[in-house]
């Protein structure tokens, strides 16, 4: 027995001493995704898939400029050098494509590559139709009706209606290599040996375990040639696992460290990186039924929430108060009449004026479906308990119904019918990256299901009119100003209980240099280096 124990001790110690240092210039990232996002082009796992796979291996015709922290990313030329809408027929767009760009397999990028990709998403009859990838992305590409090749480096896009939102859709369509697809003729196989034009290429793919990328030395933009040799992406859905992996030096970068670990990480010399980005977390209310059909109750609820308390005490400053769909300082924030600062007295006053004295007459009890965890949901249980308590303090009673994340997304899709007939609100976080994600899908009457996800339903002629006008305004500054007006309408109507905006916390080892946190869901990994 003692010999056995002795053997064990020696074995463990020798293993410990043999600890291998990681390769130089390798950036290892612990993702929150449970699995490696789809590598076949039109990726899955929401924006985390775009962040680490879609936009690293592949590129769209138009890129986000992710090089700055101090302003929202603008749209810059990607695989297209320029684009413009036709003056004579505003339903036609011309894209001039970049020359001398090569896919990772060595084949040339040209107009055929774009048409090939377009058909893989939009044309069910095409041999290369990617059922899975198409289902991930085509709802974002509603304005892409048809594409035509004018010459090898020029394509014409046709839209079903006049819409200025085309560039905001084009950013989501990444271009895949037709030559590589011809070799394998199957998307699953393509995903295991993918080929795009992005700054990184796939060298190793171990399903459910790791994806290894190496720098694409022949990348067309010398300014964005990666500084690291290698990036290793590891799915780690458990927050404690991510934390342990970072602290033990197994990874250099983790997404979303648990908020209560932040002080400790900072003390240990780790970098905590945050920035505002278009994310919001709140309750989507059912507007055709008590209690939320009453605007006064909705407003009172919004004045009842102690957002600063939630961010300070619960989330260790990894969020900022949310008093609208967008945050203050965002070009779409505008100047809403309602400020929704924490003011329980005002909330009670509003309720009283609406006939609710808080004793004999209270708003009808509401049910809110919330998740127990989930992508972008932050700390849903604790946060919702605070929201519930804040609301109770002013005389609004809400029952929380926690369900698992997969079920919540399914219930969201159903809307407030069927299984959800007794539900008055859903707590899901959203992005407002572009006008459709931020406003169009929720606050236009034409987005009522089955078209899109205006499940509340929010039907407001002014909002409809402004959104239509924004879509037809091609001057971006003017478009922003109109969208700010939409935002003012939405905030003052309070169809949601606005709660917080996440700050996208990441923790990194002190060796990680050069990362610029953009005001975005995406990141530019090309400028990051890892010190020895």
């Amino acid at each position, binding site marked *: 027995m003692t010999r056995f124990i002795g053997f064990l001790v020696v074995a463990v110690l020798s293993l410990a001493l043999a*600890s291998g240092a990681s390769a130089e210039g390798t950036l290892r990232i612990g993702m929150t995704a449970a699995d490696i996002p789809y590598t076949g082009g039109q990726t899955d796992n929401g924006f985390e898939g775009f962040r680490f796979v879609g936009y690293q291996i592949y590129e769209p015709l138009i890129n986000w400029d992710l090089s700055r922290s101090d302003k929202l990313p603008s749209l810059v030329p990607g695989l297209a050098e320029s684009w413009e809408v036709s003056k004579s027929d505003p339903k036609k767009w011309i894209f001039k494509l970049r020359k001398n760009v090569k896919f990772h397999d060595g084949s040339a990028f040209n107009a055929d590559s774009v048409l090939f990709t377009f058909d893989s998403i939009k044309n069910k009859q095409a041999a290369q139709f990617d059922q899975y990838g198409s289902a991930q992305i085509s709802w974002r590409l509603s304005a892409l009706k048809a594409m035509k090749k004018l010459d090898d480096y020029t394509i014409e896009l046709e839209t079903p209606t006049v819409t200025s939102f085309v560039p905001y859709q084009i950013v989501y369509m990444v271009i895949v290599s037709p030559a590589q697809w011809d070799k394998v003729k199957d998307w699953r196989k393509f995903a295991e040996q993918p080929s795009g034009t992005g700054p990184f290429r796939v060298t190793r793919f171990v399903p459910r375990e790791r994806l290894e990328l190496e720098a694409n030395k022949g990348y067309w933009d010398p300014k964005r040639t990666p500084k690291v040799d290698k990036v290793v992406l590891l799915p780690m859905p458990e927050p404690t696992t991510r934390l342990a992996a970072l602290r033990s030096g197994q990874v250099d970068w983790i997404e979303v460290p648990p908020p209560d670990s932040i002080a400790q990480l900072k003390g240990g010399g780790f970098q905590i990186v945050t920035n505002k980005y278009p994310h919001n977390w709140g309750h989507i209310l059912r507007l055709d039924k008590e209690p939320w059909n009453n605007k006064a109750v909705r407003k009172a609820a919004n004045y009842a929430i102690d957002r600063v308390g939630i961010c300070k005490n619960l989330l260790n400053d990894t969020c900022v108060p949310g008093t609208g769909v967008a945050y203050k300082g965002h070009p779409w924030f505008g100047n809403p009449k309602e400020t929704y600062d924490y003011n329980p007295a005002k909330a009670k006053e509003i309720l009283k004026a609406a006939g609710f004295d808080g004793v004999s007459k209270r708003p009808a009890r509401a049910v809110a479906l919330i998740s127990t965890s989930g992508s972008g949901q932050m700390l849903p249980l604790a946060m919702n308990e605070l929201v519930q308590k804040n609301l109770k303090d002013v005389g609004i009673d809400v029952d929380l119904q926690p369900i698992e994340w997969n079920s919540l997304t*399914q219930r969201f899709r159903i809307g407030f019918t069927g299984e959800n007939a007794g539900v008055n609100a859903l707590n899901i976080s959203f992005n407002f990256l572009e006008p459709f994600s931020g406003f169009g899908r929720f606050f236009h009457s034409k987005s009522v299901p089955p078209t899109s996800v205006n499940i509340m339903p929010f039907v407001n002629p002014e909002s409809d009119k402004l959104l239509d006008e924004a879509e037809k305004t091609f001057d971006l500054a003017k478009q922003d100003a109109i969208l700010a007006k939409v935002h003012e309408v939405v905030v003052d109507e309070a169809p949601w209980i606005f709660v917080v905006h996440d700050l996208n916390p990441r923790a990194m080892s002190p060796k990680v240099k050069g990362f610029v946190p953009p005001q975005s869901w995406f990141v530019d990994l090309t400028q990051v280096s890892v010190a020895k």
Partner: protein
Amino acid sequence: MWGYVGRRLLLAIPTLLGASIIVFAMVHLAPGDPISAILPVDASKEQIEDTKRAYGFDKPLPVQYLKWLGRVVQGDLGKSIATRRAVILDVRDSLANSLVLAVSSSLLAFGAGIALGLLAAFHQSRALDKLASAIAVIGVSVPHYWAGIILIIIFSVQLNWLPAMGASSDGGLVGYLRHMALPTIALALIPLGVIARVTRSAALDILNQEFVLALRAKGLARARVFKHVVKNAAPQIITVLGLQFGFQLGGSVLVEAVFSWPGTGYLLNLAIFQRDMPVLQGVILVLATFFVLLNLLVDVLQTYIDPRIARH
């Protein structure tokens, strides 16, 4: 003997069928669906219907089940919904990883557990017995995922000796062994406790029998008496070892999740949250098969060691 083995193998078929039906029914009873795991919430009705058709979810449940069964009989476990890879590949890779952990943790648990149990039995009611029993009780009572987290905090985060997660083979065999160390210990705790306790009570049982007294009375050396005791206690211990090894193989969902160890438990956990029916069904079926075969092996071993069992 062979007739017995054949009968037992035939009996395994309804067991496996039952297991697969229960898993199938339970996953469909649970709220949520596979479509929610693989499509964005904004996907259109048409996309959802197309996807359902592509995976065969538009068919009634019994039809879905029978189709699956028909393919399994031909050796095809189908394709994962989430990764669209053949399930057999996922099961193969994860089973290999889990087997490694199951073997290493079983060796650790069996060795240490039997040693502790015998130690306790031969020093009954003395300090050594109390100590061994205390260790056994701790092993059984401490949740192994919690123990896993504590091990990570001590050996990965504080001491920085061993990796906290994954099964990377980057550092070759040494790298793999280093990744194995902590999950092995965490996984060994419960069987160690169980085996120590069973061994102790089995050995005590034999020790208190008259033939042991007779052996001692005729002046047999302590080592020889020990051998007789162990041999007589063996069938009982082996039954537990077999069961525990089965548990080690399939029951490590929590430990594998804590260490992100890419084994069957980790795969099951992922598949449950993604509602990945084919993967879930495939893993359970393979694990159940292992369980059945393992039980059979234990029974055969028992008859071999104690021929009296075959006569009953």
